[in-house]
């Protein structure tokens, strides 16, 4: 099949970008979307032009590295699919597509379709961890976790941090991402000691990174390749305000030694 692509080309963070139209004549329906871009890039390299930059790694839909907007939809039109797992059989001959990078103040464009998602790393670094004792590995299943709770923690832990939620959110909010990280640790017994600090620190970092606020449009959960529900946002809000207003102050002894 033959496709027309309008691709956002931008040299660097501070350069002005714009759409460039490419004709891609020999697209096989068996290609993934990224393989189709590989073919385009091969052609551009042979012509002596700069290839289109895009992020990718595993190409199996599990690493969270790839992602851009296709016709205004994060990862393209298929539900529960990253762009590397989107195959060209979902398009037909003559289709014209618009490829844009994730657009958010917190995600500056590095080049073309690749954006800098360090803001996500900073949110995780602020509190997305649990403390564990060093030493020999603990016995498996030593801490009982009800099946339902383990399942819900796992649903939230499915987040691969691709950024589709921010990209598709009309407010460019990172609430689904942050909510998922807070929920996947907060559901489990191992996540309880830091639970209050985690919600406060991660929400504060999210604000610092200039993400917008959540208005519960529900666009993110439809765009999420892992189908994470906006329920995690309600959970984040609850953890946050309970901690902000009611977390216990440090004891006098801790204050003196700290």
């Amino acid at each position, binding site marked *: 099949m033959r496709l027309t692509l309008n691709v956002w080309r931008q040299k660097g963070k501070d350069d002005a970008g714009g*759409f460039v139209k490419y004709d891609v004549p020999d697209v096989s329906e068996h290609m993934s979307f990224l393989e189709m871009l590989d073919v385009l890039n091969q052609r551009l390299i042979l012509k002596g032009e700069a290839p289109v930059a895009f992020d990718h790694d595993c190409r199996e839909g599990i690493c969270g590295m790839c992602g851009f907007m296709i016709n205004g939809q994060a990862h393209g039109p298929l539900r529960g699919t990253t762009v590397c797992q989107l195959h060209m059989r979902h398009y037909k001959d003559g289709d014209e597509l618009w490829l844009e990078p994730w657009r958010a103040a917190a995600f500056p464009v590095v080049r073309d379709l690749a954006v800098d998602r360090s803001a996500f790393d900073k949110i995780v670094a602020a509190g997305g961890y649990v403390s564990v004792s060093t030493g020999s590995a603990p016995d498996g299943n030593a801490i009982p976790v009800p099946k339902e709770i383990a399942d819900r923690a796992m649903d939230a832990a499915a987040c691969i941090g691709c950024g589709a939620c921010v990209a598709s959110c009309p407010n460019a909010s990172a609430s689904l991402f942050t909510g998922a990280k807070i929920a996947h640790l907060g559901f489990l017994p191992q996540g309880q000691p830091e639970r209050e600090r985690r919600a406060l620190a991660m929400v504060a970092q999210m604000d610092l990174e200039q993400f917008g606020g959540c208005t519960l449009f*529900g666009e993110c959960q439809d765009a999420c390749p892992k189908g994470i529900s906006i329920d995690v946002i309600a959970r984040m809000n609850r953890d946050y305000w309970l901690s902000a207003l009611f977390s216990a102050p440090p004891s006098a002894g801790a204050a003196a030694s700290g």
Partner: protein
Amino acid sequence: MSSTAPAATQRITLFYQDYVGKKVAMALSGVVLFGYVIIHMAGNLQIFAGREQLNAYAQALHANVPLLWIARIVLLLAVGIHFYTGISLAGASRAARPVRYQVKGQRHPNLAGRTMALSGLVLAAFIVFHILHLTTGTVQPAPFADLRPYDNMVNSFRVIPVAGFYVLSVCLLGLHLYHGAWSMFQSVGFNHPRYTPALRRFAAVFAFLLAIGFSVVPIAVLTGMVR
């Protein structure tokens, strides 16, 4: 980080600075306003019980002056918080995406949610007009008499543009609450697989009933059912 615990007032200021705090402020002020519009509608519907009933109800509300002013101040505070916080949240959202998308590909149909700021602004304009019109009588499309709501409503809703603006505004109120009355629970973190779908239905039903309950009065006057 300071090792001393923040004082209660400090905690609230710090809390409001973060966006979750602003969402909680929206939800709490929203629930006050939501409760108020239900009472307001119940009052309005007394127009169908006749002139004496409605005018007596209005006079009864005004009989206790301190209580009346407490209610007015609470409402004014709720409107102020809701308006200011809403504007600042909308501003943060715009700043969070300085470059817009060339092509829009919305997946999740959510007309009510996406028009919250717009319906909110129209409602704010409506509230100002409504108070000047039927509370103070400053704007008089028709003869106005203090504390005679039955006569004031019948007189002014005969003016088609006035009745039209009221009906349009209360329909927007329904749209606003269709999203707001459900999402306020999410904002304060009340979420449960069993109750959240029920809350969505509750919001939809209330939004619909409020839009109908409020617009039935101007429509009844226009069609001559109430005269």
